[in-house]
Structures are given as structure tokens and as C-alpha cells.
């Protein structure tokens, strides 16, 4: 009741502020500023409320952004959401650091066989399954009915590649929230982080092959070499930075959270700056991926330095704020107009992906003869999609100007639905596995 009253109070103040466009120098900044604070406070409150009915907090954060964002109640304007996008990219690198830090090398080594086979099963079945099922349904969709077979095949493969991506951020947020621990959790996390990297590689491959198929030109082998080099360089740089960050954390007494934030900003900006400069000076397209760098950094600090425990503590302290804001902003940025226009098609795609994920997880678990209980619930943990998937969807728009925008719109709608239902399924799966904090404590 108290939380509900607090939310009503917050919403009332936000409503007044959203209607007050008083003349003054500070008004525009004021709106972006209160929107930021409001999203943090309201999302946290809604998350707490939802946790009372055993729903994941991040669903609450997303729903808060969605409800108060520009497409529903409109308390937080589109301009405010756009001006807060800087925070979005900062949050992503922070989450990547956290993802790396959440991967204990000892456990990965112990479960390497099961993780490896699961990834193999999931990647192949989700990609092939989504591609083939989309092809099978292609005559049902109006926008694919008149396409030639080549374009249809490339489109299906692109959607199949996007379907393999999922969201480490939401996985970590829910694992933290539920205090989940155990073999199932370790496997899920290891697979999730690795699959995000592999999804980017697969997508790049599909796009490259697809473009050469559509244009009738030969595929450039340099592209694959370049991509591999980018990934290896990013991971190596991340590892080196990991040792440096650990040394810094050891040396500086206090202010660790601000150190991590500075690191996240520096990595994001320095990699973008380097890519831009290389392209403008030497006409070389070489892109260091900040998220990969940060995953490697987090992994090294956690596993190969004496600062692992301190690092995790700091990440934990600032993590809540970052996740709350990140998911609330993601909710606010969800374009409901797109969803309104494409929800039937999107639902079909959600179903196709869901079936492929379930089948892929089952195959992966079967290959390593995992316990029966895991086999049934594993697929539920891979439904959520967020940052990377959205990024890939946007890339389709640029790479395939003919039909890319339509596919991107559809993909965004699909991701939006997965974003809402995924965390609920994930939390339930962890509970069924008996690895959530309350289950372990006998609750």
C-alpha cells in the first residue's frame, strides 16, 4: 500500500511537471533531469511492487518506462528519452563489465562440455529453425509474398541470426534479483554471454553472404579476417585493461564505483574515436567493440587478480541503479506504434523463435545428457532479447535498404514482446530449477 501511494505521489508530481512548460532558461534541461530521476524512482517502486507477486523486477522497470514513456501516458517526452540515450550506451558497457565479472573461470572450466554443446545445439537449431519456419510462413505475410526466392532466403537468414541473440543484461539482473546460484545458473550465464558474442559473428557472416548473394558478387574473404581480428583485438585489449583496472583498484582507496563508471565511459568513447580516426585517416574499417572489451576486462579482474571480490562488490552496489535506468529507458523507447501495426506478425515470429529456442535447448541438453529437469526448462531462459538484438535489427535497415526497414520494424516488435515475457519465464525457470535464493533456503 505504501509503495502504491509513493508511486501515485511520484506520478502526480511528474504529471504536473510534464504539463508545466514555463518560460525560462532551465526548462528544457529541467524536463530531461526530472525524467531521469522519475524513471529511476518509479521503476524501482514498480519493481518492488511486482516482486510481491513474484514477477521479476526488471519487468517492472520495463513496464514503468513503457507506461510513463512517450507512447502511453507521455509523462516522459520523446525528447527527454533521446537526450538520455548517452546514459543508455554507458549502461551497456557497465553491464558488459558486470557480465564478464559474473563468469567464474573455475565453474566455466568445470561445465565447459555442457556449455559448449548447449551453445552448439542452441545456435544451430535456433538459426536454422527460425530461418526455415519463417520461410515456411512467408506466404502468409503480405510483405514477403511478392519477394523472389533469393531475397526471401536472405531475409529469413537475417531474422534467424537476430533470433540467436539474447540479453545478458536481463539474465544478470534476474540472477542478482533472485540470488540464484547453482549449476543451472552457471550454465545459463555462460551460454548467454558466449551466445551474444557468437550472435554478432553469425549476423555479420549472414549479412556478408546475403549481400554477395543479392548483388551477385563474390564474397570478400578479407571481411571474415577483419571481423575475427576485431573480435580478437577487442578481447585482448579488454584483458590487458583488466589487469590495469585491477592494479588501479588496488591502489586507490575508495571511489571504486566512480572508477568503474569512468572506465566504462572511456572504453566506449575511445573505441568509437579510434574507429572514426582509422576510417578518416587510413580509410580502414576497424571497429573495436566496447562491449567485448568490457566483458574481457570484467572476466580478468574477477578471475585473474586479487581484486575480484572488491570488483564484484562495487558492481553490485552500482548495478541496481544502472539496471533500473537501463530497462526503464528501454521500456520508454519501445515504439508502441510499431507494435500496434505489426503485432500479429510479431506474435508469429515470437512463436517461431520460441519453438526454435525450446528445440535448440532440448537438443543441446540431450547431447550432454543433462538432467531431465534442466532439459524441460532450459529454453525458458533464452527468450529475452534487448540491446544487441535491437542493434542488429537497426543494422538490417542500413545493410538492406530495399526490404531492411520492414524487417527491422518487425524485428523490433518481436524483441519488444520477448523483452516483456522473457524475464518472467527466466525467473520462473530459475525457480523451477530450485536455484533461487528462496528455494535454496527452503522457502
Amino acid at each position: 500500500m505504501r509503495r502504491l501511494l509513493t508511486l501515485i505521489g511520484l506520478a502526480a508530481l511528474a504529471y504536473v511537471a510534464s504539463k508545466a512548460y514555463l518560460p525560462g532558461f532551465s526548462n528544457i534541461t529541467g524536463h530531461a533531469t526530472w525524467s531521469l530521476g522519475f524513471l529511476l524512482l518509479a521503476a524501482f517502486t514498480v519493481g518492488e511492487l511486482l516482486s510481491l507477486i513474484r514477477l521479476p523486477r526488471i519487468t517492472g522497470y520495463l513496464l514503468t518506462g513503457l507506461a510513463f514513456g512517450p507512447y502511453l501516458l507521455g509523462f516522459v517526452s520523446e525528447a527527454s528519452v533521446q537526450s538520455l540515450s548517452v546514459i543508455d550506451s554507458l549502461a551497456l558497457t557497465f553491464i558488459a563489465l558486470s557480465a564478464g565479472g559474473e563468469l567464474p573461470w573455475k565453474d566455466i572450466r568445470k561445465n565447459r562440455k555442457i556449455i559448449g554443446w548447449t551453445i552448439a545445439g542452441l545456435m544451430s537449431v535456433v538459426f536454422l529453425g527460425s530461418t526455415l519456419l519463417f520461410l515456411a510462413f512467408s506466404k502468409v505475410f503480405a510483405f514477403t509474398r511478392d519477394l523472389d526466392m533469393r531475397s526471401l532466403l536472405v531475409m529469413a537468414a537475417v531474422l534467424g541470426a537476430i533470433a540467436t541473440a539474447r540479453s545478458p543484461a536481463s539474465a544478470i539482473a534476474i540472477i542478482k534479483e533472485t540470488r540464484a546460484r547453482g549449476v543451472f545458473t552457471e550454465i545459463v550465464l555462460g551460454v548467454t554471454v558466449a551466445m551474444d558474442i557468437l550472435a554478432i559473428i553469425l549476423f555479420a557472416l549472414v549479412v556478408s553472404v546475403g549481400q554477395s548473394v543479392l548483388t551477385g558478387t563474390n564474397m570478400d574473404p578479407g571481411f571474415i579476417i577483419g571481423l575475427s581480428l576485431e573480435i580478437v583485438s577487442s578481447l585482448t585489449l579488454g584483458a590487458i585493461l583488466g589487469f590495469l583496472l585491477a592494479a588501479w583498484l588496488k591502489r586507490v582507496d575508495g571511489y571504486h564505483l566512480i572508477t568503474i563508471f569512468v572506465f566504462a565511459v572511456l572504453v566506449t568513447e575511445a573505441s568509437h574515436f579510434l574507429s572514426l580516426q582509422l576510417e578518416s585517416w587510413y580509410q580502414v574499417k576497424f571497429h573495436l567493440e566496447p562491449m567485448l572489451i568490457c566483458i574481457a576486462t570484467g572476466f580478468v579482474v574477477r578471475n585473474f587478480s586479487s581484486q575480484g571480490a572488491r570488483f564484484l562488490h562495487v558492481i553490485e552496489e552500482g548495478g541496481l541503479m544502472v539496471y533500473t535506468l537501463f530497462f526503464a529507458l528501454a521500456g520508454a523507447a519501445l515504439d508502441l506504434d510499431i507494435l500496434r501495426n505489426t503485432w500479429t506478425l510479431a506474435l508469429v515470429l515470437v512463436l517461431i523463435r520460441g519453438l526454435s529456442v525450446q528445440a535448440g535447448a532440448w537438443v543441446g541438453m540431450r547431447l550432454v545428457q543433462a538432467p531431465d529437469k534442466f532439459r524441460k526448462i532450459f529454453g525458458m531462459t533464452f527468450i529475452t532479447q534487448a540491446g544487441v538484438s535491437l542493434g542488429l535489427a537497426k543494422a538490417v535497415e542500413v545493410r538492406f535498404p530495399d526490404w531492411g526497414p520492414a524487417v527491422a520494424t518487425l524485428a523490433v516488435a518481436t524483441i519488444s514482446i520477448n523483452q516483456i515475457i522473457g524475464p518472467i519465464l527466466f525467473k520462473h525457470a530459475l525457480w523451477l530449477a530450485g536455484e533461487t535464493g528462496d528455494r535454496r533456503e527452503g522457502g
Partner: protein
Amino acid sequence: MKTLLALIVLLLLALAAGPRTHSRFGRLSQSFFFLGGEFLLIGWALRSLGILGEGSWDALRPLLTLGLSWIGLLLGLQFEFRHLRKIPLSFHAVGLFQGILVLVAMSLAFYPILIRLFGDGMETQAASLLLGAAAATSSQDILALAIHRRRKHPHAPVHLYRYAAALDSVIPVMVLVLLFGVNHGRSIFSEGSPSWIEALGWTGYATGLGLVLGLLFVFLLFRLRERSHHLLITVGFLVFSGGLAMALNFPPLYVSFISGIVLVNITGHHNRTWEIAVASERPFYFILLVLVGAGWHMGSIWGLILAPLFFLGRIFAKSFALRLSGRIFFGKQLLDWRSGLALSGQGATAVALVASVQLVERGTLADSSLTMILVAVLLSGLFAPALTSEGLSRGVRR
């Protein structure tokens, strides 16, 4: 890109500043750096170099708001009525009266000078009031530093000084909200006939908002156990209240000050918010200093010329005001003439006052007035620790 570069520089500076303050600060030469005076100059240099230009400064305004709310909250948290009741009434009276005396004396002294240089009008009245308000406040940091250094000051009424330095910070906050109210926060230096009645009404609205937000803050903090939850709610609240105040044309400093008072009087002094606010105070303050420095426009050359006069005048006014207040409220010549030097420092509240004006105001008179205050703050960082020590050594007359 430039905004992010500026943000990186700001964060690095805050990071560098944080651990440095753990070091010992025994020598006078370190006072300036301990108080962060150089960050004002760094901010100014960053703007001159084009790293923190006008566009980036505008984009980083939410950080400025957060810093202002942070200072306002910290100020408000010092006013727990249960604790205040234990302090003798004469201390309240001296603390407030000396501040008001300095406000009046400095405003009246600078009003004719400003008229002569910039002409008469509403904006000149506002500028002289602003200067008076900045002069009225004393730095709690410099006082604490001097007390820490001397350790033994058997005859000095340290509690009185401490209390006076806390209480006189209220004066600029009150003046600020009244000045905002004159033109409903659109501008505080505009020409036209000021309506002080309307300003009082505006202050009432701002107080109401602060009260409502304070209650909301209490509700939000209720039954929170984890530190990360407290951190989220505190940061979220400060951003929300600061932004809301800005959007409604109220000064963020005042609104969060009121919220701080509400919070401390409902939840008590020993709460985690206080802990978090104090622990993160220095990096936020240094970021605020850099931003204020970056937004610093010199205005007229008169600002620079009059600054030392303002600095010296303020010290005289403080000495006179403290002695007179002591005489009135203690009934005898309890305090030495030089006791007032204990309140000679100027710091966070004066900077916050400047930042609040920077958010809404630009113009030759406004910039010149802010220049006077900022130069006085820099001079204070250099000389006030020694002057404060001198004030502490004077003791009480028997």
C-alpha cells in the same frame, strides 16, 4: 562527442580529487587544493580550451542540478529540530543575526557602487542582494580545517562558530528563492518593478514543493535495508527534485534544502542517506566547481577590480557583525574583535549560489557580480584558513 569528452574529463577530475583528500593537509599551501579552489580554474580553462564549451555545458546541466540538490540536501540535513533545541537560544540568535547584519551591510555598501557602474534598476538591487547573500555565508569546511589543525583552542567558542557557520548558510538560500520569485524564476536580473509580495508567494510554493518531495523521500526510504537501494533512491530523488525544481522555475538548492529538513526531522540524524550524502560529497562538489568554473563569464572588468574589495569588506563585516551580535545576545563584550575572522572563509554555499544564478541568468551585471563572488571564493581558499586560525586563537574575553 564533445559533451562526452567533457564528461570524461569531469569524472577523471572527480576521481583524482577523491583520494587526494584522504591525504594529510598540514601545511597552509595545501589549503587551497584541499578546498578545491583549483577546480574552478580548471573549469574555466576547460571552457577556454573549448573542451567544455557552451553546448557541452548546457548538456551537462543535469549534473549541475544534481550537485546543487546534493548541497541543498546536506544543508537541510543539518537542521534536526530535536538537536537544535539543545543548543542555547543565544547561539541561534548570534548565528542568524551576524549573517543578516553582513547581508544588509554588504548589500548597502555595494548598491551605490553598482548603481554608479551599471545604473539603477531592479537588476542592480538584485545584484547587490546577491552579493550580500554570498557574503553572509561562511565556509564550514574552512572552519573545520582550521579547528582540525589547531586541535587545542581552549578559549575559543568553537561550537558557536560551527553553529553560526551552519546557520548563516540559510540566508543565501532564502535570498535566492526570493530573487527567483520576483520574476517567477524566469530571470532574476530583469528590469521592471519587482513584486516582493509575489516573491513571498513564490517562496511559499517552493517550500510546498520541498515539503511534498521531502515526504515522498521519507516514503521512498521507508524500510529499505540494502545500501544499493539507498544509493538508488538518494541519487534518483536528488535528480528528480532538482529537475522538477528547474522545470517549475524554483531553485533546486532551496527545494532540496527543505526536503532535507523534512527527512532529518522524520527519520532522525543517523540514517544511511546522511552517510551516502557525506561520503559522496567531495567528488560531487568538485564536479560542481568545474562546471561553475566552465560557466564563468567575467562580465565587466569591474567585477575583477571590485572582487578584492568584496573579499576584504566581507571580512570586516563578519568581524563587526559577530562582535556586535555577541554583545547584544550575550550581554557583555564576550568576543574579541578578531573572533569574527573565524567565519572569514567562503565556500560551498557561495559556489552553490553562483551555480543557481548561472542556471537562469546571463548578462554583464550578473556575470560581474558572480565574478566578484568567485574571485572572493578563490582568495578565501588562499587566505581564509590562516585568518580562521587567527580567529580561533582569540578566545573568549573573561
